[in-house]
């Protein structure tokens, strides 16, 4: 969905098409990775403030699932949502400007990193209350069903949300009312600093969703191809009236929870083990092995991505901040009287 994605080869046969498609997935993951890496630098330079939650390590989840959705589908995400926003096609310029707290940001600089909204892309946040987005997604799916609109609402949340009462209320309601919703549980094994097994007695999260009579299964969230296939299968089932589906996407964040987190609760060895399964490294190796990717291809990707990020930074730097006179604008809608 990125406006800058390159279609190198005109797909003529399925193998060529498949190779091109896998390269696109790689490029999109790389784009998110490099964006997040620059965000770290910009945070250190105090260009980005507040909370910043990085998606590094989890890129396959957003890229794979967003590929399975149509532009008419809706997305509700969490506070770790830069990856979802980019994969969805939210412009990098408006995303960066948002983090720069500029009026050209997608939320006019009022939301920041955790509250990315873009109604044109049907991207409904950016919710910083764990579990808080689930009821919204259920409601959007209910509205679509009542209005007879064939649309999937994809709702992202983490393993931490599964411990919230709101999660269980929403699983029950979505299943009870047979709503067109795709629950995407990003199990990165930690709710901030608390490991899943230290917080929840049943760590098989797909099984817990299954107890609500929902089709659910676990997916290797470090494998973008596997994620996309699973998401496509689940989204299509939802779309044809199959009711809510649940994917447990098993992944890992390579960086700390936020920029404030000293990351004292994990073994370095554990992090290194997961890095061996880095979705970008893995797919790069596979593509090269299959003869579908050259070093030149990668250089082109990096160059294009670097340019895109530089443009986003430059435009964000140059953009205006919202005048303080507008502070109380949008507390209420303009009244039509």
């Amino acid at each position, binding site marked *: 969905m990125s406006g800058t994605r390159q279609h190198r080869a005109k797909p003529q046969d399925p193998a060529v098409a498949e190779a091109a498609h896998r390269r696109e997935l790689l490029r999109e993951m790389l784009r998110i990775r490099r964006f997040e890496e620059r965000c770290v630098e910009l945070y250190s330079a105090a260009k980005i403030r507040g909370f910043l939650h990085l998606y590094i390590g989890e890129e396959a989840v957003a890229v794979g699932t967003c590929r399975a959705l149509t532009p008419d589908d*809706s997305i509700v995400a969490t506070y770790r949502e830069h990856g979802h926003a980019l994969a969805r096609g939210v412009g990098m310029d408006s995303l960066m400007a948002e983090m720069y707290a500029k009026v050209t*940001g*997608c*939320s*006019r*600089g*009022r*939301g920041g990193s955790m*509250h990315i*909204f*873009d*109604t044109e892309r049907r991207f*409904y*946040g950016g*919710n910083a*209350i764990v579990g*808080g987005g*689930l*009821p*919204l*997604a*259920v*409601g*959007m*799916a*209910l*509205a*679509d069903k*009542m*209005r007879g609109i064939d649309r999937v609402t994809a709702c992202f949340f983490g393993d931490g949300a599964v411990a919230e*009462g*709101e999660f269980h*209320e*929403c699983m*029950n*309601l979505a299943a*009870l009312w047979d709503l067109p919703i795709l629950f995407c549980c990003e199990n990165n094994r930690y709710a901030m600093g608390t490991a899943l097994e230290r917080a929840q007695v049943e760590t098989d999260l797909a099984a817990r969703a299954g107890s609500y009579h929902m089709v659910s299964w676990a997916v290797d969230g470090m494998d973008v191809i596997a994620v996309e296939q699973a998401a496509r299968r689940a989204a299509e089932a939802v779309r044809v009236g199959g009711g809510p589906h649940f994917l447990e996407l098993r992944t890992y964040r390579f960086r700390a929870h936020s920029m404030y987190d000293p990351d004292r609760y994990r073994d370095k060895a554990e992090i290194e083990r997961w890095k061996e399964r880095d979705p970008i490294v893995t797919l790069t190796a596979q593509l090269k092995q299959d003869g579908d990717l050259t070093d030149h291809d990668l250089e082109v990707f990096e160059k294009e991505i670097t340019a895109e990020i530089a443009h986003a930074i430059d435009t964000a730097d140059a953009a205006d901040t919202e005048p303080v006179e507008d502070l109380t*604008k*949008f*507390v*209420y*809608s303009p*009244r*039509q009287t």
Partner: protein
Amino acid sequence: MNASTATSGTRKTVQGTRSHQAHDSADTGAKPVSYREAMRAALREALIKDDRVFIMGEDIGRYGGCYAVTLGLLEEFGPERIRDTPLSESAFVGTGIGAALAGMRPIVEIMTVNFSLLALDQIMNNAATMLHMSGGQLNVPLVIRMTTGAGRQVAAQHSHSLEGWYAHIPGLRIVAPATIEDARGMLWTALQDPDPVLIFEHALLYNASGPLSPDAGPVDIDTAAIRRPGTDVSLITYGGTLPKTLAAADELAADGIAAEVVDLRTLRPLDDATILASVRRTHRAVIVDEGWRSGSLSAEVSARITEQAFYDLDAPVERVCTAEVPIPYAWQLEEAALPQPATIAAAARKAVG
């Protein structure tokens, strides 16, 4: 507000008996209806006029509503639009927010304000913030109705008046219909509002009855109303304490004190102009609020009066609030905890001096 609204409330007693209204209906052709019936008529009208409207909440369908407000609607409009929900306040209130974002006009019923605390996250962190936080992209045209207030011996988890808490939150509009006309007319206006509106219905009002014109319709949800004009003291109240305040005004009239009764109607945003105009006429103010005193709506109204009309006052602002205790079950304790006509009248006499 029309004239009948301004006068009808003066005749209601605390119990909402209809002794006087019968005369009114003979005079005007208006049929006496209960607050509950008026609210139900408003819901029916909304369901008929706008196919985006649906209602959801606990026991609103088969059961007919815990206060029977929605009785019969399931049979008339079917289970798609009259949705019984599981006991999951956070989920179904949040579902209302999501459905509102996606083009519907949901009306969510919460049994009592005490239960609404289970949905406070959704109301506060999503409904109230979404428009501002998204830079104006997402408004939430949601109506939430809930019962509030004490007086039925249902003790400390079903009796509180927390509307003042909600009135603290920017992004919400808070209304409290206290009359039959407002029960009939506020809902439609609330549904036209692009932003979330919370309607607080005091449980003791449901059986109140009064005349209602057959062509009664939408009313504004912006302004306070003078329910009884007077010159000596302003009694400022809303919701369930309006009948008690009017009873106190009757009592004061017998002593030769002409009390003006102001019904706030909308608790957020407050209609400062009507409040201040009344205080400038009478030079004395008593605020009657079934919420607790500390950090309350009554404190807010009092502060606005002293900030903006201090030099018009001839006496300190008085407040009559609920005693700062969890509402007890025992009838004599509950009665003692709540504002009553006698305590309101006593505060007014003190202000008048």
